[in-house]
């Protein structure tokens, strides 16, 4: 060989934690909370309209102490988890079916697309008529909410797999399992994770709506109940809970996304 090309990977750079970057996202919330506290403490706004952060924190402590918050949380958590799991399960199943088979696509997809255009919340009266205000109706609503984003994105993810890479896997004689795990799933993963993130969002939304229309437990009920007695601080505790739960579940999926999609070469801003 006459031509020598030497290429070596340079040592990977040590990651330095940049404290400035870590603090940036907190600047705006902290300023708002301080201003909020001041507005309340100085008596500009009445407490039953806007309780101060310190008051909300105390209420939070009380609700946590007497176990009430935890009770509502478990009830809500169960509903979301069940509905989400059901919706995602069926969504994956149908999405994979229609993704792989044109026949399944032509039989199933048009009907589902039609159903998808009906706003979910418009179905609530029907659900109350059919299932009453019990657990089943709520879980079912949540699962429908979780179903569509998962279904649509699984289907799309599979159909977006590059035909050229499928050709490679045929040339190399991958087994069906190899094709699935080395080509189709990794390629569809960005869409799959997007579908799951969207499904989580809708699950929380539908949960709140469901819990506000007749039930005796759950964070949504807690908020509704507190409103009736003008306990604005409890309303806020409920809202903060929803914000925290939504953010946590979303961050979890986002973390998985970042870890499993590090091969991607995309614009990072």
């Amino acid at each position, binding site marked *: *060989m*006459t*031509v*020598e*090309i*030497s*290429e*070596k*990977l340079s040592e990977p750079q040590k990651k330095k934690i940049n404290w400035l970057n870590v603090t940036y996202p907190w600047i705006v919330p902290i300023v708002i909370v301080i201003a909020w506290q001041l507005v309340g403490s100085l008596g500009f706004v009445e407490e039953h309209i806007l309780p101060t952060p310190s008051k909300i924190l105390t209420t939070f402590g009380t609700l946590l102490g007497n176990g009430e918050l935890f009770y509502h949380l478990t009830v809500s958590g169960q509903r979301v988890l069940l509905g989400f799991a059901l919706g995602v399960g069926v969504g994956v199943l149908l999405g994979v079916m229609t993704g792989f088979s044109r026949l399944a696509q032509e039989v199933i997809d048009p009907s589902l697309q039609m159903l998808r255009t009906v706003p979910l919340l418009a179905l609530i009266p029907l659900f109350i008529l059919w299932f009453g205000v019990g657990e089943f109706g709520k879980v079912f609503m949540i699962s429908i909410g979780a179903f569509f984003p998962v279904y649509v994105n699984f289907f799309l993810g599979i159909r977006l797999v590059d035909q*050229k*890479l499928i*050709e*490679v*896997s*045929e*040339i*190399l*004689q*991958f*087994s069906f*399992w*190899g*094709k699935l795990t*080395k*080509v189709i799933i*990794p*390629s569809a*993963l960005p869409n799959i994770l997007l579908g799951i993130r969207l499904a989580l969002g809708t699950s929380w939304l539908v949960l709140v709506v469901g819990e506000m229309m007749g039930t005796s437990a759950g964070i949504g009920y807690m908020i509704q109940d507190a409103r009736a007695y003008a306990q604005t601080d409890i309303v806020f505790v409920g809202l903060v809970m929803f914000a925290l739960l939504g953010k946590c579940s979303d961050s979890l999926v986002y973390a998985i996304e970042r870890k499993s999609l*590090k*091969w*991607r*070469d995309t614009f990072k801003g």
Partner: protein
Amino acid sequence: MSERALVIERLNKIFTTPNERVVALREIDLQVKQGEFITVIGPSGCGKSTLLKIVAGLDVEYDGKVELNGQQIKGPSLEKGFIFQEPRLFPWLTVEKNIAGDQSLKDPKVRGKVHELIRLVKLEGFEKAYPKELSGGMAQRVSIARALLRKPDILLLDEPFGALDAFTRSHMQEVLLNIWETNKTTMIFVTHDLDEAVFLGQRVVIMNPRPGHIKSVLPIELSFPRKRSSLAFQEMRRTVLNEFEKVEEESYTVGAGI
């Protein structure tokens, strides 16, 4: 070198699209010996890729006889390796996993072979790199290593070095010749580059478009390693060029008539 590995007789291929019928290949006859290095050149659209895809088993809707080691080709198989014009690596797999494909790197035998190939294509140090971290030439070398891991009897290459710069290209040609000499793999190499065709091939197949057919097959009787600067090489190159220009003229006259 006497055994015929690939036998193509009266191969015809027609593409039917809703509004037309394209005769991509007409009456192709070609016999390739075991271990032979064939290069194929011809103007764009003359059916070179179509021919390779049929031999690879990626396209089985054709008429005629296409036999590899006495067996009619009905689909892809591990005896037939294919290197595409673009590297077509799996972007989510590291270099070594791309080469291993659906074989497990945990198997020490696979691991050993993969690393040997990485050395062969001079990519040591990049085992764990993702395709996005590679240059075009490096990526194409990975795809060559990937094809070689399966130890194909016949390697089909569709303009594999088309996107490379002159320097990397000549390096890759050396690598390929090296592999050919050690493994005795039968090669069918499609290229746009006349120089490349003469440098690599024991026979050059010249194809003509509309409909795609073989115009002539020229033997290149120069021993390896070949020197581009040698008089014999220049002479050979001129002969092929003459033949090729005839093809081009014909194709332009036909083209002008349409």
